[in-house]
């Protein structure tokens, strides 16, 4: 596919993006902001919102890709109050920065999303859980929430509908594991943010033992648009049959123009890299990419044309994750990169379960041996066995952590073996 064939795709989430400033409430309103919410509150039917979200096939954009509508619907009708909506702005997946871009582009989009989600779940509290690195974003949100409050969009009796919802910003102390929904709930309650294996699910017993909906920033940002334009419209945005809506791709690594690009679901990987991100830097060759953050497996060059949506990647055994496309070119040693990723994961493990706490450093050390050329076929076998066993860890962190390793072993075994055979890194 060459650049002249590419179409101009509609911009939805980032339509109010300015390179140098944040979109104001007015700007947002001009682009149709708060229309969805007004309509929803006017209709006064939370169930309807849930149904629309389900019909729109809106999958959670935080990585797990759980249908947002379905999550809302798991809250029992007679579940106790108060209920909570937690906006997960704790994106700590390496390579991912879409939430920051979304907040900086259009904070009201998120606020509206939270209120919509809150109304759908009949929640009275919205909490934006934000990582400490995004202090600036947290301040923006706090400021814009006040603006919204003064406009009657947040707080008591929103848009005179009788619906009350408070939104607060909660700053995290900063840990990768806090991005996990159950761990995030623990963090909010002021206990150690270890994940908690369901059941009970957060939608049954979450924050303070009340029903809690945890949604990613991007997921919440999609909601106003869905409510305004309908489920069908959202589905039609995607290029592929199975996808729905647009996706904010964070492209980074060996590309000319790293950054966030909002593209339809199912846009081919090659197009993202070659066209939107300006191709490989310094005329290099595409070697592999991590399609959805550090906890996904390497996509090799043979799948350069793969449509980037949840379903297509799943069929090939990959995950779209957060759609953080990290590109590596021919000069990069993937073993070394994996060691870096493992270093990150070993450091960020919460220390709860054995495979993750002690197994990841073990795998990292083995991987370091391979990288240093001191590995053997036995070392590699050991790594592969341990990676397999990581899938029996407590939460999804450990399987995510070994995904790049397993991807490496599956697609780039030659490169690994080269380290063993040459007794060192062939790229150094």
């Amino acid at each position: 596919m060459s650049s002249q064939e590419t179409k101009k795709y509609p911009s939805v989430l980032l339509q109010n993006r300015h390179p140098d400033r944040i979109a104001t409430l007015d700007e947002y309103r001009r682009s149709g902001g708060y229309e969805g919410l007004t309509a929803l509150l006017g209709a006064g039917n939370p169930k309807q919102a849930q149904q629309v979200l389900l019909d729109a096939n809106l999958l959670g954009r935080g990585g797990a890709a759980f249908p947002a509508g379905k999550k809302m619907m798991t809250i029992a009708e007679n579940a106790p109050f108060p209920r909570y909506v937690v906006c997960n702005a704790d994106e700590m997946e390496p390579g991912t920065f879409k939430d920051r871009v979304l907040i900086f582009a259009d904070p009201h989009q998120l606020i509206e999303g939270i209120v919509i989600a809150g109304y759908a779940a009949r929640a009275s509290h919205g909490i934006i859980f934000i990582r400490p690195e995004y202090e600036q974003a947290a301040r923006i949100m706090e400021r814009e929430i006040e603006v919204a409050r003064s406009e009657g969009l947040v707080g008591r009796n929103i848009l005179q509908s009788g619906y009350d919802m408070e939104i607060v910003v909660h700053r995290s102390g900063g840990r990768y594991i806090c991005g996990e929904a159950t761990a995030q709930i623990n963090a909010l309650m002021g206990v150690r943010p270890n994940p908690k294996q369901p059941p009970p699910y957060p939608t049954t017993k979450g924050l303070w033992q009340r029903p809690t909906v945890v949604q990613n920033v991007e997921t919440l940002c999609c909601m106003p648009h869905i409510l305004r334009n309908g489920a069908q419209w959202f589905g039609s945005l995607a290029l592929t049959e199975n996808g729905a809506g647009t996706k904010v791709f964070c492209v980074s690594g060996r590309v000319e123009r790293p950054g966030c690009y909002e593209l339809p679901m199912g846009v081919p990987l090659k197009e993202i890299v070659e066209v939107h991100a300006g191709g490989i830097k310094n005329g290099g060759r595409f070697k592999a990419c991590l399609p959805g953050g550090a906890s996904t497996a390497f996509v090799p060059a043979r799948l350069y044309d793969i449509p980037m949506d949840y379903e297509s990647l799943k069929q090939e055994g990959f995950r779209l994750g957060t759609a953080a496309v990290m590109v590596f070119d021919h000069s990069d040693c993937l073993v070394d990169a994996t060691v870096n990723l493992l270093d990150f994961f070993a450091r960020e493990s919460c220390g709860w379960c054995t495979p993750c706490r002690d197994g990841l450093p073990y795998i990292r050390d083995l991987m370091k041996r391979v990288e240093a050329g001191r590995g053997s076929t036995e070392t590699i076998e050991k790594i592969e066995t341990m990676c397999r066993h990581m899938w029996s860890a407590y939460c999804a962190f450990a399987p995510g952590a070994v995904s790049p390793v397993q991807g490496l072993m599956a697609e780039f075994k030659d490169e690994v073996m080269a380290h063993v055979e040459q007794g060192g890194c062939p790229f150094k």
Partner: protein
Amino acid sequence: MIPEPTLSHLKDRIAAADHPRELVVDVMFALQEHYGYLSDEAVETTGALLGMSPLQVEELATFYTFLYREPVGRYVIHLCDSVICWLDGAESLRDHLCRKLKIEMGRTTPDGLFTLLPVCCIGYCDRSPAMLVNRKVYGPLTPEKVDELLEKLKQESE
């Protein structure tokens, strides 16, 4: 001791909260702001304010990255060492910083100005290699830019 306004502000917030414990991170940040780092005294104060034992506060304080249980310098430099920044030369940048400040990672310069800490991906992969100085982002960095920044900070502090 913590200044009375800060303390009373915290107390008000705690009194207003449905669940005082949910403010523990905020209280710790506030006290960290005051002490420069989260001292033992700050931990104990946090516990006392929220009805928790010092240990229960410590359980959280030692968990999070941005709560410093050891004294830090005036400028805390968090250098991202995750994969994209690493790809773009974070390691050489780290070595440059260590050389320049004459400290190892995790240490504070003798003049108490800079503390050098690694951090996992800070979400500025489009501006790699990046770092935070007192939670403000700088990137993409080169050794020259770093030198410039350090000079600026040094002057600021005087």
